[in-house]
């Protein structure tokens, strides 16, 4: 839940999400798409990630037009849709999940709108709260359009996580930060999701631009795929790293049946990433000067 502006320190927020990051600093945030290859498999995978050290788990609710995703996650979403994943199936899965890490749903705005009978965000948020989700991330919902969803999230005690992109600056950055809750998703580079071989220089610039806003955790995503990336990012001052495509690659490799080795591989990967993050924390400090000006 968003700081309500009544003078409370953000540190004393009652957000599960923020708490999970602060208490497990430096945090690992993982993404997989629900229903790829099946909701049953997703359950195992999420629990494996939880075991492997994920501090916060984003679970994708698949949408047919994932314009912010690169090829890896697009394919995962398509597999999930082909397997018949529905919002209700998704919520039921969440309901059954037992994880230490809080869960967020990541989906596109139309999915949020359509859950109820008319185009209205409230039924979705209500149901999300009911099954125990802690927050929502909507990549095609900029702050300018977020009022209805933010109001609904506030009403149900959910965090609405905003993304800050390399192009986000000045007044808009300020406006976004003033309504951010849970954590700020720092987009490490322009473009779409997808595992990369290196850490973008924009990461450092992004963290630098956010240096002033240290009352809310900042996690970096888009392209993070290895423990060493995680280390570098945390060293640059991030409170957490977000990893999606690198995990989805593992899901994809293991194919349609969702087997035990897949879960093991995910758990191992989570561990590598978490270890990297922790290593970075030992080396760095939390509000660095930009290294790449």
């Amino acid at each position: 839940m968003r700081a309500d502006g009544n003078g409370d320190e953000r540190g004393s927020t009652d957000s599960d999400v923020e708490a999970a990051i602060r208490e497990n600093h430096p945090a690992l945030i993982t993404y997989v798409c629900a229903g790829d290859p099946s909701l049953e498999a997703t359950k195992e995978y999420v629990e494996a990630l939880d075991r492997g050290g994920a501090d916060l788990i984003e679970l994708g609710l698949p949408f047919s037009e994932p314009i912010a995703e690169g090829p890896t996650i697009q394919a995962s979403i398509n597999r999930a849709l082909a397997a018949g994943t529905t919002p209700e199936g998704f919520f039921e899965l969440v309901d059954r999940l037992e994880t230490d890490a809080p869960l967020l749903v990541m989906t596109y705005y139309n999915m949020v709108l359509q859950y109820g009978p008319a185009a209205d965000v409230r039924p979705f948020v209500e149901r999300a709260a009911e099954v125990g989700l802690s927050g929502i991330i909507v990549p095609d919902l900029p702050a300018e359009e977020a009022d209805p969803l933010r109001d609904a999230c506030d009403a149900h005690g959910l965090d609405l996580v905003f993304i800050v992109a390399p192009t986000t600056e000045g007044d808009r950055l300020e406006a976004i930060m003033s309504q951010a809750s849970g954590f700020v998703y720092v987009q490490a580079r322009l473009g779409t999701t997808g595992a990369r071989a290196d850490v973008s220089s924009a990461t450092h610039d992004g963290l630098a631009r956010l240096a002033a806003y240290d009352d809310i955790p900042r996690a970096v995503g888009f392209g993070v795929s290895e423990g060493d990336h995680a280390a570098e990012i945390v060293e640059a001052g991030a409170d957490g790293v977000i990893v999606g495509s690198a995990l989805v690659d593992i899901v994809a490799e293991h194919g349609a049946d969702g087997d035990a080795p897949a879960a093991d591989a995910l758990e191992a990967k989570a561990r590598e990433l978490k270890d990297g993050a922790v290593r970075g924390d030992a080396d760095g400090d939390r509000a660095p000067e930009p290294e790449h000006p």
Partner: protein
Amino acid sequence: MSTSEQTDEAEKSIDEERTFGEYGGQYVPEALMPAVLELEDAYERYVLENEDGFVDEFRERLREFGGRPTPLQRADRLSERYDRDIYLKREDLVHGGAHKLNNALGQVLLAKYMGKERIIAETGAGQHGTATAMAAAHLEMPCEIYMGRTDVNRQRPNVYRMRMNGAEVNPVEAGRGTLKEAINETMRDWATTVETTHYVIGSIVGPHPFPKMVRDFQAVISEEAREQIRSQAGRLPDAVVACAGGGSNTMGAFHAFVPDDSVDLVAVEAGGSSLEIDVEAGVAPNSATLSTGTDGVLHGAMTKLLQSEDGQIMESHSVSAGLDYAGVGPELAHLVETGRVTPVTVDDEDALEAFHRLSRLEGIIPALESSHALGYLERAHEELGDLVVVNVSGRGDKDLETVLEETETRDLEAAPDVEVFDS
């Protein structure tokens, strides 16, 4: 849009609304927001306020390069057939063969004014892609077009045309390889290159300011038609009929008539093979978004959509590739909601009949998209009053193969026998 000549106050007032009633808005990834806002600013300055003479240059290029004004032609044999005066707005005569250039030229020119270095665009059947490639060549702008793999392979002539105009054509392998995927992929390119690149959207869809801006570029259709009908027929028409895919030719043909309450505005959507949705397959065998769609958000705007109960966007279908889209411009959704625009549908078969009918009776081979508007005339002319303007949004040369195939499997009254080959 204001021109240098028309300094009418109402027209000059800057329209800062980002929505049309409850439709429209800017539902894009955060990374794109600054570009969208930059475009909004450029739209207001150049297009609405004619800064640096943008509008004057645009109009001149439309005239000299695009071939405007296009005629408003009385269709003698249709008028006889329907026992009322039918006028055709001849957008088929615009350079490139459709109204699409009006918009493409406007946006590429605007991108130049904005200092952008590169143009990208999506295309389905290739009409918007070819128009954009032509405009980009004309204005010396590097240009890349995204096009679904399926479309690339079935629309070769348009791919050639784009390549010949110097554009890159990037096949999109995702999904079914059609328009929806091409739009998604163009948005992804834009999200990566947004600082130097302008995305030329092909209809009145997308986030604000696209729907207004594209409408303003297309409004030349109705601005001309309104003057022409008054001078040729001595009065305003009783109805204006246009097909609606995304809706750019539609709003282009309607815009200047919107304040004329006596003029009925009829948007003809693709009825495809049926208005019933195949829930199992997630397919709408039509593109009747205004008539059958429900509210939702797609490609940056709140509008009417063909979608499942869950909110998944459906594959749409129409014999006419240019109407085959599961969304529609938010302004049209709004005007339908307020009752100003009447949405109707014409199915594949009636559109094909209308294609053949106009070709045979008037010596004009219309685009299959435009044939939908003409098909409505055949069915409902009695409800349209005595003086009707139909927008012929494009020419049908691009559709010959499709029409032949589709005609072969049907028993169409108006179709010719084409057995003159071989031996």
